[in-house]
């Protein structure tokens, strides 16, 4: 009688151990799959042109000595710093515009009902599902009419269409989850809407605000289609397009510089992510699950 539960417990334990071994094996394979491209980019960016052009040695490691020449060239003798500055300007302005529009609208839609507010909230969600590739051609005409073609101001105009809907949507969720007792208390103390927003809603929903900011930052930093379609002059280019189009010309073995450029251009979102990973994930998952 007593032998039965013992064997079932051992087999359970054995089961769990096998599940653990299988899980680690799986994770090992996936991590290699997910990380080998950036690793290879890094290795290439540290190689001399001679080593990149050479066929015999192992391409996965640096055998001929590490060089920072590609990075130095990029930062001192190319338009790369200009691209970096342009991207930074565009991103900072877009994030600021996005947060102002989204927070105001989300506060209103989450707390103050008015005629048509339900429809507007649904509209926000539907706009979030509109991809940049659907409307880039009519927007090209609009950008042209406004005289913004070939300036990075065109990006500042159109990027909010990609960032504002999602940010408003998740802020509605975060604001909506704040207990009503909190704003009632503030109202009794004589707070007006602006004070309530600044003193109650924003501090309480700060994690949501950070998540929305990270999202807006990532989208504005990474977009490729709009700058490719609207900007042609090197002096106005942003990092994504500048790296892809201007660093590919010239001699055949531009790979070292190209990889160095791609890594440097990708560094700010990756660093931001490394520090704020949990907010980033909270924002992503709440976008699809908050009603």
């Amino acid at each position, binding site marked *: 009688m007593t032998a039965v539960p013992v064997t079932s417990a051992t087999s*359970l334990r054995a089961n769990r151990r096998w*599940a*653990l071994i*299988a*899980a*680690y094996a*799986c*994770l090992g394979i*996936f*991590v290699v799959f*997910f*990380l080998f*491209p950036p690793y*290879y*980019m890094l290795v290439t960016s540290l190689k001399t042109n001679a080593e990149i*052009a050479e*066929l015999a040695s*192992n*391409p*996965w490691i640096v055998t001929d000595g590490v060089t920072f020449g590609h990075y130095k060239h990029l930062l001192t003798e190319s338009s790369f710093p200009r691209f970096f500055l342009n991207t930074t300007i565009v991103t900072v302005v877009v994030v600021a515009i996005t947060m102002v529009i989204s927070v*105001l*609208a989300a506060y209103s839609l989450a707390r*103050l*009902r*008015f005629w048509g*507010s339900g429809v*507007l909230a649904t509209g*926000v*969600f*539907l706009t979030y*599902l509109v*991809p*940049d*590739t*659907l409307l880039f*051609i*009519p*927007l*090209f*005409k*609009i950008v042209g009419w406004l005289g913004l073609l070939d300036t990075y101001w065109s990006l500042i105009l159109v990027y909010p269409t990609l960032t504002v*809907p999602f940010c408003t949507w998740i802020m509605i969720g975060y604001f909506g989850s704040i207990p009503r007792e909190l704003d*009632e208390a503030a109202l*009794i103390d004589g707070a007006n809407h602006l004070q309530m927003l600044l003193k109650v809603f924003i501090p309480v929903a700060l994690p949501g605000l950070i998540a929305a900011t990270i999202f807006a930052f990532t989208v504005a*930093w*990474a977009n*490729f289609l709009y700058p*490719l*379609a609207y900007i042609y002059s090197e002096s106005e280019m942003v990092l994504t*397009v500048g*790296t*892809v189009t201007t660093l590919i010309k010239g001699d055949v073995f531009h*790979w070292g510089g*190209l990889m160095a450029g*791609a890594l440097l*251009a*990708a560094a700010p979102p990756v660093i931001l*992510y490394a520090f704020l990973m949990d907010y980033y994930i909270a924002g*992503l*998952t709440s976008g699809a699950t908050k009603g």
Partner: protein
Amino acid sequence: MRVLPPLLRRKPAVAVLMCVPLFALILGLVAYPFFHALFLATLNKAETAFVGLDNFSFLFGRQTFWMVVRQSLLFALVAVVFKALIGLAAAHAINTIPTKGQRKWRGMMLIPWVIPPALSTLGWWWLFEPTYSAINWGLTKLAVPAVPWLSDTFWARFSIILVNVWVGAPFFLIMYLAALKSIPGELYEAAEMDGAGPWQKFFHITLPMIRNIIAITTLFSIIVTLANFDIVRVLTQGGPLNTTHLFATYAFRVGIESGDIPLGAAVSLFMFPMLAILAFIILRNVRRRAASLA
């Protein structure tokens, strides 16, 4: 105490005012461009004359266009299936190991999702380089013939899907992991008591519990994948012989590069019915989920 809040809330003017910027943005830069696209698509190339549906009938008569339609659908379906499977496997593996180590593994696996796709695709472009790069070097060492990754139609399509899966699988991983965490542990304990094995637990507890999240994530991903631009643009620019073009890259080629804006607008608009159907289903799902949570 109960009278005060409704009094202050009865200020629709303030509420509407706060939504004006949002409303202006949606109206001016989303709704208006959409209708303008419909108008543009009915013009001739010089945009001087109304041609009705000629742009559409021109596209319907072109083999290239039908190839773009087929390739877009094939690309989206295959890529989404693999993203979903890899995301689910990885999320499940992370959820199996002790909680202490989960953050580290999850952090590493999300990196492809954080790098701007246009830039990470440059890295892949170099990996696919036939002579000097690393993948074919490895294949040659294993005595496998080098693969013409981007110059052969089959391999070019394969490569584009591979990169898309690489970029997009972490999104599924995040969503699934969040869903797995929300399943009460008691369910598994009870199943173990009844002698359920790992597969039974997976099919009878895990899968039914996260079904809704799987559906929403998949629909989201189909939209994003169908509308993809960056990967194809950087890797193949639609080649060889237009066989890897998606709606977006083909619209860019026709509308911006060849300067036929009306035709480009028509190509883009072909995405709209598909996106509208997907959006409708997502909205219904999200509403149902919100209702079930409330």
